[in-house]
């Protein structure tokens, strides 16, 4: 779509003109994250979700609910949180059949599950691969392409960062043109937590603050993707994004 100088200036003016943040429409209108209460480590990253959502609210237009909601698969409120995060630090017991059934319905209805491997070894990874196969046996867990919308839903990212750099891509299960399960092994939420004095709870290795910033950007992209889906894959965005990435654009 052709852009005009006047429109560009209108957008640039966004930095100076504050859109009104009126009264919220209630808790259901806020974008919040549910934390899956299962296995070991779901509470191992205290304050991480709050910090991420605070960053989301400060950097984007999304109206957020900062505090996560701890949810089990059979929680009646599970379906009020379309973005569910499962953090694990060790091998987890298998989900029971009812949980599998309910989570599968959750995913099919439009929910998204982000799984964050915060474990030092591979025990959680083994659990996850088994549970994903049970949750969604029809589609395999595959690496997400480098041009996946998740890497450009708000920030343009080359790779996923976290507290550690164990893997240079994300994996996911794609169905109905959306990634309904995304799995990262870099302890994404480990990069977010602050202590009561404002310091970072955990160090980020190997690249410190720059890596932490890129982890936040991935977290923000994750929330943006959960709320906008493939909006950034619309043609109107594609040309601009390719230009910005200095990829070849055919006119």
């Amino acid at each position, binding site marked *: 779509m052709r852009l005009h100088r006047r429109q560009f200036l209108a957008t640039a003016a966004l930095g100076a003109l504050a859109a009104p943040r009126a009264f919220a429409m209630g808790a259901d209108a806020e974008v919040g994250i549910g934390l899956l209460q299962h296995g070991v480590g779901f509470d191992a990253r205290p304050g991480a979700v709050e910090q991420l959502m605070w960053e989301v609210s400060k950097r984007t*237009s999304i109206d957020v609910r900062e505090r996560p909601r701890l949810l089990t698969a059979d929680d009646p409120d599970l379906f009020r949180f379309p973005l569910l995060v499962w953090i694990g630090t060790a091998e987890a017991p298998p989900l029971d059949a009812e949980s599998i059934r309910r989570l599968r319905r959750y995913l099919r209805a439009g929910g998204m599950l982000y799984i964050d491997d915060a474990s030092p070894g591979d025990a959680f990874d083994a659990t996850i691969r088994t549970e994903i196969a049970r949750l969604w046996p029809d589609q395999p867990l595959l690496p997400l392409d480098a041009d996946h919308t998740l890497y450009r839903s708000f920030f343009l990212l080359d790779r996923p960062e976290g507290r550690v750099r164990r893997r240079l891509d994300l994996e996911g299960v794609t169905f109905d043109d959306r990634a309904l399960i995304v799995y990262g092994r870099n302890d994404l939420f480990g990069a977010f937590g602050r202590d009561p004095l404002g310091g970072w709870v955990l160090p980020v290795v190997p690249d410190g603050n720059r890596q932490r910033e890129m982890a936040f950007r991935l977290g923000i992209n994750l929330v943006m993707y959960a709320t906008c*889906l493939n909006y950034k894959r*619309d043609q109107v965005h594609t040309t601009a994004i390719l230009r910005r990435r200095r990829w070849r654009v055919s006119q």
Partner: protein
Amino acid sequence: MLRTWFDHGDDFNAAHLVLLSDWGLLALIAVALLVLGGLALTWHNTRELTGRRRWILRGLRAVAVGLLVLLFLQPGVRLENVTRVRNHVVVLLDASRSMGLPGEGGTRLDDVKALLAREAAVINGWKQDHQVDFFAVTDQARPLADPAGITAEGDATRLLSGLEDVAARFRPEEVAAVVVISDGADNGALGEAVPVEEAPPAAVAVARRLQAPIHTLFTGPREPPRDVAISRVAYDDFAFVRNAVTIEAEITVQGYSDLVLPVTLRRGDTILGQRLLATEPGKDRYAFDFEFVPDKTGKDVFTLEVGQAPNEEIRDNNRRQFVIRIIRDKIRVLQVVGRPSWDVRFLRKLLKKNPNVDLISFFILRTGASIDVARRDELSLIPFPTQELFEEQLGSFDLIVFQNFTYRGYQMIQYLPLIREYVRNGGGFVMIGGDLSFTSGGYAGTPIADFLPVDLPPEGGDLIDEGRFRPTLTEAGRRHPITSLSLVPEENAQLWATLPELSGINRVLGVREGAVVLAQHPGREAGGAPAPVIVAQEFGQGRVLAVTTDSTWSWAFQAAADGGDNRHYYKLWGNAIRWLIQDPALKPVRVEADRDRYPLGTEVTLLTRVVGADWAPAVDTPVTIEVRRAWFDAGGLRQTEVVTLLEGRTSENGEYLARYLPAQPGAYTVTARVDRGTDVVTDEDVFVVAPDPIELRETAARADTLKALAQAGGGEARTLDQGLDGLDRVEPAVVKVNRRKDVPLWSSGWLLLLAVLFPSAEWFLRRRWGLL
């Protein structure tokens, strides 16, 4: 000839040569060998002679041998009295309207009638052996009892179709000949093929089926009539709204020079384009293209017209009317979102999944208050192209969705009146609630508020109610197409009662006059009535919907928590989109003519379907149909009149079938009107009644088509002046021999005398020349 010579008593009706001898094959071979031997001997023993003597002797010997062979074979004439089934000479007389144009004497058809009178003796002669059948041919062949009574009223000339009809009517052995008498102005396959093919395959094929010669007689003037004609109009029966439509026209000019005429294309009364036709020396065909962009859906009558030339003989072919149905290719939806949210996410998914929706989304991902820590090239943000969306491309959208979006901050104030005009002119608009919608979005007192179905409170105060609630349907909502999750009102209300709760509404002062509340808050009030949640309203020609909550997404997602699914959410928004874009299927009354174009004299069938307020077929409901005709008077001005009113009642299927026979050509508009007590609902359809313009699009007589037809059929191509006498015909087949008589030729005394004379002459000459 033979019968005339030998049948002196006129007792026989057939004669042919036969061999009366009864020799066997061996005898015939032996005689043939003897003849060859005799001739060879003569050849050999005369080789020493001078040229003249040699050829005299050889000639005498050959004749003598021939005569002996004749005597041996005993030739004769067999006279027979036989019974035959007379086969048919089929005469196809062109009865199309072009035959009423000037010919050499009177009209072309008058000239043909004169020929038939002049050639009556020839035709009567044919009747001795054949049955002569006359057919009038237009786009088909129909039997003609009295050729003298034929009239030139056919709306097409399709000679090959006429021949196909003849071939279907007769078996091949039943046809003696086909005689086609026409001006050759064929507007079917023959006329199209002849300029490029001398013997069109289609003509050859039909000739093969007939197995009889096809003769043609051409009638027409030496000079073509002075005429300006629309000879071709190319258009598609349907086109897509807001997509360029091209109509191609070809105009033929005969007998005029230095002519300048306007060529005009109209949609109804509106002129879509005008061109000038200026004649050029040596050129008789002129092509024109008209391109326009239809801005609304529906059927309409288009008129292409070329001005009349001075003293033009044929005026019917200066105007063509046709119907084009303008449809949507896809529903173009503009979704503008003030901030990403779960409500946005589920509505976008719904819109993207709909294959009939072409979705343009713009989400405001960052506000002025957002912290900017990244360089611009690290962000995927693009500018918000307000001018392009709300000024340049606004008319291209069928539906605009403002979802929790405020215009403030984007220099959009100047576009708000344009959006109001967009809706007034037929666009669809829905505002979905949120903390950036309605008054919270600053819309109170703006042009947007002019068409919203709710009264907006001024800014300040408590604008939002956060509580959870389950909306209830109003009486209108129980039956309205938007909120009909089921066609049965009671079941519909039950479904609504089981939907998950919503949360939060934008407060409004009340609903506007004319707005229809479909769903309302069970516990909050606005203007003394329950607070509206879903409100619909028509504004000008457009439609508007207000949804004062941003939580309908729970019907897509939370509904699945207890084993349900999102079908009610999809149904609700699918209904809303169809209502907002004024989907014809959602009209309570629909009238439809069975065709878009009728030849004059054809009955029109009009089907009206009516549904009640509950969207079930309306039974035994009075329907009034007004048929209005529009035509152009002699001065070229468009006139209209109501030509009939039809009244009836719907059947148990909610249908009323009416028939009408238009008496005049023109563009017709049908309006069906149903009084439902509370309101009057109407629908319209259009059709064209015209003499088929194809016939007069080419007025020049064409001898070339008739020549090609005769060539393909193995017959003769003649003019009227050459008449009918001597045309080749297939003799009828014999089915019974009643009497037979053989007249021997070999026993003639003259033949015996010659048989003696020639050998004697040879003997005499041989002796005289010393060869014996």
